[in-house]
């Protein structure tokens, strides 16, 4: 197995490059998940509780984002923002695009979770004299959270996968680093495989965690 030891050598040589790329991939994912989720909760709340105008605007926003491929969002964010005078580097522009993408997904999940709760619960809460804020905080939100946590964890895995798209605009995350390494040692088969393995491990971990959360949050029957 000459080849395999040569491959291990190459990994050892490139270890810091790979680790740096992995670090960037994780920061892209984490930032876009956090920002996207915060925005997404607002989106979801507006879709459920907003007045007609707000609902219409937010619905148009989510439909537009969900109808556009993430790669197009990333490219558009990168090229358009600099044209209108907002100077963002590729990293910031990419994270912004992913966060927007994430927000539309989280928004739908939050909306679905809240709307799955039977009307009777809100009525019951009103009947015992809770204000809307109290109803939301003590009755609706905890149940909705339970509903959407598993789906939300899956969105996190989606974001890790989508982070690879930032390689197209030159963000040195794991995939772009891998391409750089391959352009030096021409071991495309081995290194794409290795990158795939790393992504698989991260996403599989998230998936298992999602299953765990699903078990934990399932309403006992």
């Amino acid at each position, binding site marked *: 197995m000459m080849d395999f030891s040569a491959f291990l050598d190459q990994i050892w040589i490139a270890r810091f490059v790979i680790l740096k790329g992995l670090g960037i991939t994780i920061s892209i994912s984490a930032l876009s998940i956090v920002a996207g989720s915060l925005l997404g909760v607002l989106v979801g709340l507006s879709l459920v509780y907003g007045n007609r105008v707000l609902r219409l605007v937010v619905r148009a926003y989510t439909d537009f984002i969900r109808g556009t491929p993430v790669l197009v969002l990333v490219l558009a964010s990168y090229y358009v923002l600099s*044209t209108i005078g907002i100077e963002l580097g590729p990293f910031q522009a990419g994270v912004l695009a992913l966060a927007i993408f994430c927000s539309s997904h989280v928004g739908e999940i939050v909306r679905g979770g809240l709307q799955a709760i039977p009307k009777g619960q809100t009525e019951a809460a009103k009947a015992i004299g809770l204000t809307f804020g109290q109803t939301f905080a003590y009755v609706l939100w905890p149940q909705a959270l339970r509903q959407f946590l598993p789906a939300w964890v899956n969105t996190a895995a989606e974001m890790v996968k989508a982070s690879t798209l930032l390689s*197209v605009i030159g963000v040195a995350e794991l995939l772009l680093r891998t391409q750089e390494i391959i352009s030096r040692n021409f071991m495309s088969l081995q290194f794409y495989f290795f990158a795939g393995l790393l992504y698989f491990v991260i996403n599989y971990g998230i998936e298992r965690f999602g299953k765990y959360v699903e078990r934990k949050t399932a309403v006992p029957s």
Partner: protein
Amino acid sequence: MGYTLNFAAVWRSFDQLLEGLALSLGLAFISILIGAVIGLLVAFALIAKSSWVQRPAAAYVTIIRNLPILVLVLFAYFALPQMGVRLGKIESFVAVLSIYSGAYLAEVFRAGLLSIPKGLTEAGLAIGLTPLQIRVSIIAPLMFRNVLPSLSSTVISLFKDTSLAAAIAVPELTFEARKINVETFRVIETWIVASGLYVATCSVLAALMRVAERRLAVPR
């Protein structure tokens, strides 16, 4: 800022965008068709009792679903030639998207298969059909009709994934948009029109799926 919207340059290249969109739709159509065949076979394997059949199918679905599609696209186009498998851009992308959609569709179909009552299989056996005949002429058609509502979002997201073909220079919509962007510098207009085309296509696809859903719904 001094940027004024001027769509003239983009309209001049609108044909290019439409050709790109046609290629995107073609890629999606062929890949989803092949993916549906893979998905159906894998879905039957997923609910098989024998673990020799079930395990590899489950591994395929888990592995593909946890990999970024861009890695698969680049792997197929740049790494497979090292193993002597040389495919053109379009062929390698269709191969990847088919395998990728196979895994996602398998999950959708599996849920559909599980919702088919056991009684139908037993009825088929009782009138003397072979297990294969039962699957082909009873279970699969019913399953398709049942899963149409959840199929819609998968199909749309697979259509959007054709944009990744731009990464290996397949001249589909995203690639054309990027080219026009660089050639004309009408940045905002180009991306508004390109994403508008994607959004419109997705809504048309969703509407078509809703019609199919209504026409083909299993009467209760």
